[in-house]
């Protein structure tokens, strides 16, 4: 007897229009780790509320070269040391920050609470939430125009850094 999957018309529409995809952990042909280390006062990555921390230019992550399919933030409970003498931030500070993805004209494509990029299973308000990767369909981004900010820097120090993992599909063979 033939098996039938029951899919709601809305979910079917989402699946056909790049609004939804079956969950899997690795969602790009490639991934890249991006680490930013916080530095002392008076330097580019010093710690201050609402300071824009721009990413270093990376042509391979620009929209003309890559479709970004997911992004994740790694915290101390997953990787305590960042390999550059810096410790990783605690997941408890994520609620104070947000990430802005911008195109080459500085138009904002996405504004995302950093909390949303924390993928592991977590407990909030007494409820356990399963691991969920933040999936995207970004194709117009200019990586060096993207930045994150913290409204409150309590709990962040110059001995720490922050790590993102970007999953992407290269669009060219450059």
């Amino acid at each position: 007897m033939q098996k039938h999957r029951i899919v709601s018309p809305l979910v079917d529409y989402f699946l056909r229009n790049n609004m939804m995809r079956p969950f899997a952990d690795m969602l790009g042909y490639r991934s890249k780790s991006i680490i930013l280390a916080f530095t002392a006062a008076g330097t580019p990555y010093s710690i201050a509320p609402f300071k824009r921390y721009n990413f270093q230019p990376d042509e391979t992550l620009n929209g003309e070269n890559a479709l970004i399919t997911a992004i994740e933030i790694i915290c101390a409970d997953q990787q305590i040391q960042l390999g550059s003498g810096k410790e990783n931030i605690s997941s408890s500070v994520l609620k104070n920050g947000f990430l802005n993805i911008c195109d080459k004209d500085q138009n904002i494509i996405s504004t995302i609470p950093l909390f949303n990029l924390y993928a592991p299973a977590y407990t909030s308000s007494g409820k356990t939430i399963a691991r969920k990767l933040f999936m995207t369909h970004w194709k117009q981004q200019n990586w060096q125009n993207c930045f994150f900010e913290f409204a409150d820097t309590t709990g962040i120090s110059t001995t720490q850094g922050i790590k993102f993992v970007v999953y992407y599909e290269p669009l060219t063979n450059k």
Partner: protein
Amino acid sequence: MNNLIVKRSQIIECQFTGTPATNKRYNFTQIPNISRNNIILYAIEALTADQLTYTPNNNQVIAASQAVNVVVTLRDNNKDEFMYSQPLYTLVRPNVGGFYTLIKPRVINLTDCYCQLVAAGSVSTNQVAAFNFIYSLVGED
């Protein structure tokens, strides 16, 4: 299991100006880029201070315990209140297994959308109800 793909997103806020009052309509803060009936909303989540303490505009987000005191109404470009008095609590992802609330994609009129307090509770003046709108632009694939 399926997972949502974010094409574009924006943190939207609804500020409780003045003394918080029950049933008063508090409109969303306008964002010029997306206030021209030019976005197709397809998912939404609400944020409390457990997920975001301050919005990009430096407004304090209401505490998680206040989520039960707020309802939200969304209107499309035909003035249809397609989401009417939805409890904010049910739009907070940790309250619903981590899932976004999906919406049949439609052009939204941000100017007409509003929040209401069903009880003033401990919401303070100038705090905000914050939302993350997941959308695509009209005409964009």
